[in-house]
C-alpha cells in the first residue's frame, strides 16, 4: 500500500495530476470522515477535505517520502479543521486557557453555553447524539478522540499527526473520553 502510494507521489511530483486523482480516490472517505467528525457538518467537511487535498497537492514537494503519506495528509486536515473551528467564534480571546485546566479554554465554555435542552437531546437518534457530543468537545480533545476511536489509529501515529508528545495525546484521549462519558451518561 505504502509503496503504491509512494509511486504515485513520485508521479505527482513530476507534475502528473492523474496520479493525484488516484490519491484523492484512495483517501477521500477517510479524510472526509475526519473532517465530518471534527466539524459536525457535511458541507463544511467537504469544503475542508477539498482544501486539505489541494494543500497536499501544492506542497507535495515538502512531503518526506520516508514518512507515511496518510499521516501527513491527516495532519493537514486536522490543522485546517481546528482553524475552522476557531474562526467560527471570532469575538473572544479564545486561546486563553482557563487557569488550572489544561486544554480547557473559552471554547469549551462557549460550547457548554450552547448546550441543547434535555428534551431535545432525548429526541435525537443515537448516531446524531454521539456526533453532537463529539462536536461539543474542546477541539484539542476532539481531534484526538476522532483519530483514536473513529479512524482507529495507533497512539504513535496520532502523536505524529497532531505533532504532540505521546503523553499529551494520551491525556487528551483520557480527558475527551471522560468528558464524553459525562455527556453521554443519560443515554
Amino acid at each position, binding site marked *: 500500500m505504502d509503496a503504491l502510494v509512494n509511486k504515485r507521489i513520485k508521479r505527482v511530483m513530476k*507534475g502528473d*495530476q492523474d496520479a*493525484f*486523482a488516484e490519491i*484523492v*480516490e484512495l483517501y*477521500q*472517505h477517510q*479524510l*472526509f*470522515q475526519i473532517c*465530518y*467528525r471534527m466539524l459536525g457538518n*457535511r458541507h463544511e467537511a*467537504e469544503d475542508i*477535505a*477539498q482544501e486539505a*487535498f*489541494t494543500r497536499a*497537492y*501544492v506542497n507535495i*514537494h*515538502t512531503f518526506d517520502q520516508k514518512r507515511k503519506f496518510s499521516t501527513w495528509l491527516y495532519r493537514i486536515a486536522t490543522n485546517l479543521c481546528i482553524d475552522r473551528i476557531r474562526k467560527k467564534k471570532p469575538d473572544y480571546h479564545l486561546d486563553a486557557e482557563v487557569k488550572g485546566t489544561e486544554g480547557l479554554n473559552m471554547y469549551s465554555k462557549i460550547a457548554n453555553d450552547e448546550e441543547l435542552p434535555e428534551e431535545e437531546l432525548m429526541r435525537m437518534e*443515537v*448516531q446524531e447524539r*454521539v*456526533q453532537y457530543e*463529539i462536536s461539543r468537545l474542546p477541539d484539542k480533545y476532539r481531534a484526538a*478522540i476522532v483519530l483514536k*476511536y*473513529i479512524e*482507529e489509529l495507533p*497512539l504513535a501515529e496520532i502523536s505524529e499527526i497532531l505533532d504532540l508528545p505521546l503523553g499529551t495525546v*494520551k491525556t487528551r*484521549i*483520557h480527558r475527551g*473520553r*471522560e468528558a*464524553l*462519558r459525562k455527556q*453521554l*451518561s443519560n*443515554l
Partner: protein
Amino acid sequence: MMNACPEKVIRMMDDYLDGEISPSEEKELKESLENCSDCRKIYQELTKTIAFVQSASHVQAPPDFVQKTMAGLPKESQRVGIKRFMRHHPLMIAAALFVLLMSAAMMSSFSDDQQFSFTKQENLVVEGQTVVVPEGQTVVGDLTIRNGDLRVDGELEGDVTIVNGQYMASSGVINGEIEEIDQAFEWLWYTIKGTFQDAVSFFGGNDQSIDE
C-alpha cells in the same frame, strides 16, 4: 462522583482502555471494580461511550468529491514548476553549476595536456615516449611525466607523477613516492587538489610578496 474513586483506579482504567496495562495491575483493577460500585459504574460508562463513538456510522465523501477536488486544483505553469524545483533543490542547482564549470575547465586543461612532456632533469634519457634513468646514473629532483612512460635503470631521488602513462617495473631504485594518474576523472581530482593547494599557497604566500 469521579472523585469518590481513588485516582489510581481511574489511571489503571485509562491504561486498560489504552491497552497498556501490566498483568499485575489488570488484576488489581479487576479487584477494585468488584469491590467498588462507583468505580464499576464509571468503567461501564466509559466502555459504553467508546462503543457509541465507534459505532458512529462511517460517513462517505460525496460521489462527485474526486472530480470536484481535481477541478479545484491550481493549474501550474511550467515556469512555476522550474522555480519550485530550484527553490527546493538549491544544492542540486549548485552541484550542477559546479560540475558544468569544472568540466569546462577540466576539458580545456585536459586537452591542452595531451602532448608528451616531462620535467627536465640532468642525466635523463628519452627513448620515444619513454623517459629513462640510465643504468649507473643518479637523477636528483621530482619528476612529472605526461603522456609517457618511465623506466628507471639507475637511481632516482625524488617523487614521481605519471599522467596517462605508466611506471615500468625495472631494476633501478626510486627514493620517493610514485603517483600514476590514468583517467580523466583522476586527472580532474588531481587538478582540483592542485588548484586548492595553489590557492592555499597563494593566500599563504601573500605576506612574502608584499615584503618583496
